[in-house]
C-alpha cells in the first residue's frame, strides 16, 4: 500500500512537472514573439481556467485555445477595412518612429489603391530626412502618381495644405501623407504632427480618415510606448505592421491591441511594391506558433 501511494505520487508529480514544463514552454514561445509579459499572463490565465475546468491536457488543444484567445484580442476581419470617405478626397496620415518603413508603406498603399482604380496623390511631408523627398518621388514616378513636395526643411503643414488644395482641384480620391520619422519622446516633433493633423481636419471638416502608425515587427516592448504616445497625440485609427518577412513575430501588436485597442490594419512583407496586404488575425496567430 505504501509503495502504491509512493508510485502514485511519483506519477502525479511527474505529470505535474510535465505540465509545468509545458506551460513554461508555451509562455517562453509567447514572450519570444515579443508579446508583453502581462498580455502573455492574461492569455495563459484565461486558457488555464478553461483547460482545468474542462480537463483538457492535450497540448494541441491547449495551443488552439491560446490561438483562440489571441484572435479574440485581435478582433475579427471586419475591423480591418480602411475607412474610405464618401466625400473625397479620403486622407491617410502615415506616422511612426525612424526606420520603421513609413515611406515604403506609403508607396505600397498608393500602389494598392491605384490598382483598384483610385486617383492617388502622395504628399511628401517628410521635409527633414536627407533625400526622403527623392525617395518618395522615385516611387511616385514609378507608379505614375501625383506628388506634392516642397523644399527641404520647409513646414510640413504647408506641404499638407498644398496637397489638400491640389487634391480638390484634381478630383483626387485618396491623399496619402508621408511624414518624417520621429521618436515618440520628442515633444516638439509630436506637436508638429498635431499641427499637421489640424491642417487636414481644417480642410476636410471631419476627422482624418486613417491615421496609421507604422510599427516595425522587429521592435520589442518599446512599440507599445510608441503606440501609446502617438495615440495620445493623434488618436490613431490603426497600425501597419512592417517587415513581417523578417524572423521577428511582431507579437507586441497583440499587447497594443489589448491595452490600447488600436487595431492592426495592414501588414507588409518584402521589398516589392505589392508586398502589402490586409491584416489576417488567423494567419498572424498561426505564424506565432509555427
Amino acid at each position, binding site marked *: 500500500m505504501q509503495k502504491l501511494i509512493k508510485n502514485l505520487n511519483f506519477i502525479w508529480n511527474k505529470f505535474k512537472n510535465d505540465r509545468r514544463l509545458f506551460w513554461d514552454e508555451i509562455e517562453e514561445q509567447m514572450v519570444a514573439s515579443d508579446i508583453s509579459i502581462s498580455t502573455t499572463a492574461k492569455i495563459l490565465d484565461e486558457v488555464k481556467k478553461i483547460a482545468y475546468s474542462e480537463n483538457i491536457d492535450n497540448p494541441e488543444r491547449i495551443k488552439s485555445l491560446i490561438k483562440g484567445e489571441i484572435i479574440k484580442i485581435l478582433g475579427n476581419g471586419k475591423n480591418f477595412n480602411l475607412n474610405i470617405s464618401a466625400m473625397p478626397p479620403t486622407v491617410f496620415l502615415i506616422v511612426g*518612429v525612424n*526606420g520603421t518603413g513609413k515611406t515604403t508603406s506609403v508607396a505600397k498603399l498608393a500602389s494598392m489603391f491605384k490598382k483598384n482604380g483610385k486617383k492617388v496623390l502622395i504628399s511628401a511631408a517628410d521635409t527633414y530626412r536627407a533625400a526622403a523627398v*527623392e525617395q518618395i518621388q522615385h516611387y511616385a514616378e514609378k507608379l505614375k502618381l501625383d506628388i506634392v513636395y516642397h523644399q527641404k526643411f520647409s513646414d510640413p503643414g504647408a506641404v499638407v495644405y498644398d496637397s489638400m488644395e491640389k487634391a480638390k482641384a484634381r478630383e483626387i480620391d485618396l491623399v496619402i501623407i508621408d511624414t518624417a520619422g520621429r*521618436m515618440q519622446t520628442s515633444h516638439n516633433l509630436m506637436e508638429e504632427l498635431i499641427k499637421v493633423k489640424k491642417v487636414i481636419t481644417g480642410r476636410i471638416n471631419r476627422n482624418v480618415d486613417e491615421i496609421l502608425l507604422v510599427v516595425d515587427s522587429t521592435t520589442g516592448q518599446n512599440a507599445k510606448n510608441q503606440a501609446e504616445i502617438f495615440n495620445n497625440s493623434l488618436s490613431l485609427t490603426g497600425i501597419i505592421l512592417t517587415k513581417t518577412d523578417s524572423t521577428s513575430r511582431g507579437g507586441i501588436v497583440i499587447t497594443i491591441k489589448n491595452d490600447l485597442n488600436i487595431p492592426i490594419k495592414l501588414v507588409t512583407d518584402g*521589398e516589392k511594391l505589392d508586398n502589402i496586404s490586409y491584416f489576417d488575425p488567423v494567419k498572424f496567430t498561426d505564424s506565432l506558433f509555427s
Partner: protein
Amino acid sequence: MFETLTTKFEDLFYKIRNKGKLSPGDMDNALREIKLALLEADVNFKVVKEFLENVKEKATGEKVLESITPYQQVVKIVNEEIIKMLGSGSGGISFSSGGPTIIMMVGLQGTGKTSSVIKLANFIKVRFNKKVSIVAADIYRPAAVLQLEDMAKNINVDVFYQGNLDPVSLSLKGIELFKKTGSDVIIIDTAGRLQVDDVMMNEIVNIRKRINPHQIYLVLDAMTGQEAVNIAYGFNQKVECDGIILTKLDSDTRGGAALSVYYVVKKPVKFISNGEKIDDFDIFYPERIASRILGMGDVVTLVEKAEKIVSEKEAKIIEEKIYRNELNFEDFISQLKSIKKIGSMDKIFSMLPFTNKNKVFKKINLDDSYIIRIEAIINSMTIEERRKPHIINGSRRKRIAKGSGSSVSEINKLLKQFDKTRQMLKQFSDANGKFNLPF
C-alpha cells in the same frame, strides 16, 4: 508610466523589512522581479535564464542575505554583471598602421546604417583628426546614395558612387580611389538586409572577401525585440563582426537587445547613436545602458558610494560597539563624516527609492546645518571626552560650548540625545551583535 524595478523592489523591501533577514524565498522573489525587468527591457528569454543562474550563484552568498540592504545588493550584483559583460572590449576604435583603415557597416533595414556611417565619419574626423571617405554601396533603396551624399556634404567628406557597378566592384573601386587621395579611413555603407536572405547575405560575404575590412560593425536598433539574438548571430556567422553600433537610444527604449547580442556573439557595443544631429554619437559607456536595462538609476550609485566610504570592517566594528553599548563620540563623528561624503541629506534621501513612501523619513528633519553644528560641538571635545562621554561634567560642558560657539543647553541636548540613541541602537541590535535598522 511603467513600473520600474526600483518601485517593485521598494514594495518587496517594504513587505519584508520587519522580518529583518531575507529568506531564500525572498531571494527568489527578488530574482523573479529582475527576470521580469529584463524581459520588459527586451533581453532575450534564454539569455535572461542563463544570466539569472549566474546572478543567483553570486547573490545567494551570506554577504547578500545578511546585508542590511539585501535587495539593493542583488540589484547591484545584476548591474555589475551587466556592466562586466557589456564593458569588456568596448570603447573606441583601432586604426590600421599600414594604409587606410577600412570599416564596413552592415545591418537590417531601417536600423540607421546610413546615419551611423555619417556620424561615425564625423566622429573619427573630429576626434582623431583623420581624413575619412565613404563608399555608397547601397544600390537598392531608392535615393539611399543621394541621402548619403547630401549628409556627407555637411561634414565635408567625399562619397564614392558609380551607377553601373555592383556593390563588390563599387567597394573595390572606391577603396582604390580613396587610397590614392590619401584617406586614413574608408567607410563602406551597405544596403539593409535580413540575416536570413541568402542572396543578400552572400553579397556582403563577397564584399568582405574582396576588400578585407579591418572592422565590421553591425548596426543594431536599440528597440529590437527578442529576435536580436538571431539577427546578431546571423550576421556574425556570415561576416564576423567586430562590434555593435547601437542606434535610436534617444527613444525611451530600455535597450535590452544590447545584452542579448553580447551573450550570443560576445561582441561589444562600440558606439551609440542617440539623436537626429550629426554629433549625437558617442563611445559606448556600459554603466549607462546597464541601469537603463534595469529601469533604475541612483540606488546603485548610492550603494556603491556608501560601500566605497564605509568599509565592511568599519561597519562590523561599529555594530559590535553598539551591541556592547560602547559607541562613543569618535564613532559618531566618523559616521557623520561618512554620510557627508556621500552627499547632502536631501540628495541621499532622494536617492533612496522609498523616501516618499516612508513616513519615518518624512518625520526626520535632517538638515545639513544641524549636522555641521553637531560636528562643531564634537570637535571641541578632547579625545578622552569623545571616547568616554560620561566624564563630560559641568565645567567641561562650559568649555565645549565656548569652543564650538554654542550654548551649554545645546551641549546638554546633544549628550542626552546621544545617550538615547545609544540605548535605542542597542535595542535594535540582536543577540548576535547584528544590527537591524529601525526602519
